[in-house]
């Protein structure tokens, strides 16, 4: 019974993130539209988009290779596995020990590697422009993320997200280093999800686009997988921030259906709040010039380093 329940719980988590991801994207879009005094598309619109894309033919460029066709599956799988490793409503799931926070960062790196390689595959300038900018952003965002990981891991004494969440629930308190890590993590999350001020998910202007330029040649089910992976990544970062900095409501070694239902409600609430914050933030700032992006990410890297440094010098900060 124990093993089967644990397996079910793990499977439930994997399905949960997959099912919720488009809704979060829809929710952010809806909130943004409402803040702009538009009606906006319904929250369920991303599901309809996905269904429509899955049903369509794939139009492949003449000179694209097997890598172009395989990449969407790898991008989706890597993002999905990474998202499933983050505690959403319960800690210590059956397979949560198979990868820690560093592995999650690296899995997202795997997705990005294939994304950029696929962008270069057709040999168009758009693919190149997107890949080139994405690599620049990633080369600063990834080390910043590793430094954030270090900060959090030094506080909690573990890189394992379940342990970190349990630590934050029980003994965590206000610390300078965690504050720095939170600011840095928000910056990295915005960059990794191609949100304003780094990238505009709603633009197709060649001067500004990064992520959209990389997926320009994709269509049909391939595009659907990439869109789904993008939604999953947004959900992943929201869950990550929630799990480290707001672990309230997480089930630790859970029992009972009611406890889990409560945890699920708490998780949904957190996602809603995060979406609202994201929409408000995106409404209130402008997109940056591409070469100013490195400054902001450099700040995130420095904040991560500062947090780690504080903890090296004094464990209590």
């Amino acid at each position, binding site marked *: 019974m124990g093993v089967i329940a644990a397996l079910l719980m793990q499977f439930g988590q994997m399905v949960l993130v997959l099912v919720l991801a488009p809704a979060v994207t829809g929710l952010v879009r809806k909130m943004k539209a409402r803040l702009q005094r538009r009606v906006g598309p319904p929250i369920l619109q991303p599901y309809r988009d996905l269904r429509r894309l*899955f*049903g*369509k*033919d*794939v*139009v*492949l*460029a*003449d*000179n694209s*290779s097997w*890598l172009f066709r395989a990449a969407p599956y*790898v991008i*989706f*799988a890597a993002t999905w*596995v990474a998202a499933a490793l983050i505690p959403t409503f319960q800690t210590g799931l059956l397979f949560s*020990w*198979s*990868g820690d926070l*560093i*592995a999650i960062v*690296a*899995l997202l*790196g795997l997705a990005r*590697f294939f994304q*950029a*390689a696929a962008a*270069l*595959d*057709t*040999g*168009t300038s*758009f*693919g*190149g422009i997107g*890949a*080139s900018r994405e*690599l*620049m952003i*990633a*080369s600063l*965002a*990834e*080390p910043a993320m590793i*430094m954030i990981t*270090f900060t959090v*891991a*030094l506080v909690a*004494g*573990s*890189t*394992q997200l379940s342990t970190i969440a349990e630590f934050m629930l029980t003994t965590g308190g206000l610390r300078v280093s965690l504050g720095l890590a939170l600011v840095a993590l928000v910056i990295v999350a915005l960059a990794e999800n191609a949100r304003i001020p780094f990238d505009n998910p709603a633009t197709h202007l060649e001067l500004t686009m990064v992520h959209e330029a990389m997926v320009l*040649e994709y269509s049909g089910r391939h595009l659907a*997988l990439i869109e789904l992976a993008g939604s999953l990544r947004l959900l992943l970062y929201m869950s990550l921030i929630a799990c480290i900095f707001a672990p309230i409501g997480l089930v630790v070694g859970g029992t009972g259906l009611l406890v889990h239902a409560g945890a699920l409600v708490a998780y949904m609430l957190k996602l809603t709040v995060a979406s609202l914050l994201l929409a408000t933030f995106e409404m209130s700032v402008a997109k940056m010039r591409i070469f100013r992006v*490195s400054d902001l990410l450099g700040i995130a*890297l420095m904040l991560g*380093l500062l947090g*780690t440094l504080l903890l*090296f*010098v004094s464990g209590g900060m």
Partner: protein
Amino acid sequence: MGGLLGCVAALFAASFFGFLPIRRHSATFAVYGACFAISIVLCALSIPAIAAPASSALLPLGLPWLGAHFRLDALAAVFLAIVDLGAAVASFYALGYGTHESEPRRVLPFYPIFLASMNLVILAADAYSFLFAWELMSLTSWALVMSRHREAATARAGFVYLLMASFGTFALLLAFGILAGPDGAFAFDAIQARPLSPAISALVLALVLVGAGSKAGLVPLHVWLPLAHPAAPSHVSALMSGAMTKVAVYAFIRISFDLMGPPAWWWSLPLLLLGGITAAAGVLYALMETDLKRVLAYSTIENIGIIFAALGLALAFKACELNGAAALVLTAALFHAFNHMLFKSGLFFGAGAVIVATGEKDMERLGGLIHRMPISSGAFLIACLAIAALPPFNGFASEWLIFQGVLVSPQLPQMGLKLLVPAIGVLLALSAALAAACFVRAFGMTYLGRARSKAASEAREADRWSLTAMTICAALCLLTGIFPGLVIDALQPAALALVAGHMPAQTANAWLSIVPVSASRSSYNGLMIFGFLGISVWLSAALIHRFASRAVRRAPFWDCGYPGAGPIAQYSATSLAQPLRRVFGSVALGTYEEVEMAPPGDTAPARLRRFIRDPIWDFAYAPLAGGIGWVATLLNHLQYLTIRRYLSFVFTTLVLLLSVLAIWG
């Protein structure tokens, strides 16, 4: 022990196949076949020797009062396994690749001696045989680099390499001289028994860093490496990058962890600093380079930096008697050395296949090879993923261990280290991220897109020997990435011997996950991640093909309404790295761009020029070379003096020497 030395003797004998008056192809086949067989035997003998007790031998060779000492302990066995596995795959690859060589007789006689000398360096247990084998290794590899000496670039590379190699050996010679002391106790066990004062140990450490570091490619002694490694034939490049730099790492570990006795904590400072800077600088250079083999050579510098930074942490832990943590980072460093041998060999094999197929190694003239070289592009892709430290491949496992080592280092009591280690952590994280960018670029520009030259559009897949060697490297990258626990456990005897500590046994863990300290602290399971990735890919593909659409239409790519954009309109290797060059290069490498616009009304094209300077070359080597030239010009006057002047010089020297003797004696 006897078997190993016999194999080394057989390697020396195999070099005679290169001289035999037989057909070129037969000679190639005989030499590389023999080298492959002997290397496999050496590798098979050394792996069980890691866990076996140390054995030694004394041969009546070399200095008459010293003899030649050889010793096989856990550390030597680990590096023998790394070097000989690399040698075996390189020889196998050369069975096919070597037949494309235009002048094989320039390579064949030196290749087996090069392999033998690397083995001898690792087996040597006295200063004389160590330095003899070290110099033999330098000279044979130099001869291999010079096999295409008619190219001007090769001649320059050979010159710089020879200078740096002799300089490095000179530093090692001095280091051993100081270690052996005034009695001339050159055998390693005699050196071990001598305690060192702090000033002496600082001097020895500096000399060893120069000697081993210049061979390994530590910044600022790296300048020869990106010249010499790419100039050699590709299987030799693979060996030089994959195996010879590991021999240098071995020399450093042997002297600093073993011969110099218990370390002081400040020994780790230069290592951490140089390692971190080398890692970041190496990959930045690689990102600016467009020659495929030079990209790989620069990335070797990066990986050496990572290994040395980990070794620095291990020394610090050992000095503070945190033996478990020291074992963790030392294991990580050895694991990374093994991994780097695997993926760098695979990458150089891929580059060699590209050169054979197209005659080009400039990425600006390649592209689209994935269509014409499907198998080698797949193997190259896996090696790229591994070197970019992405799961589930082996590069990630070892870098993950190093990061875990950084995370236990707040236990170190010294304030200097507390401030330095986080900074080194940033440099390592930065170099990991930049390595991913670098290898997306290397793979994308070489294999993806449209062919940028006629040669690239007519390329043909490599021969079967080469493909097999590449596939073996790729498969081993995946296997050691999925089962890192096996390698970690195999390395523990070496860690136990050097830092008197060991990591917990990994093969006993459930589901073969690796747990460096404790399960609640951190764990990683390559097998599980691989399984999850595989299942997710399979599940999504199966579901989509079953329930959604599986139709495919082919159409031209979107050209923005401007038809006829040739392959030249694609992003090039230079333009792909432009944002990175602007962000990082302007500070670290002094890069800048100049735009030359035609005056209004003129139809001449606008030109963009980029300039990249190597600040180390500008600020260290150029002044040094200039200074030497200046001194040489001054000394030149001494050639044209009268006999009386010379006699008076002789007299003055004699008086000076005698007075020195009178004061000290």
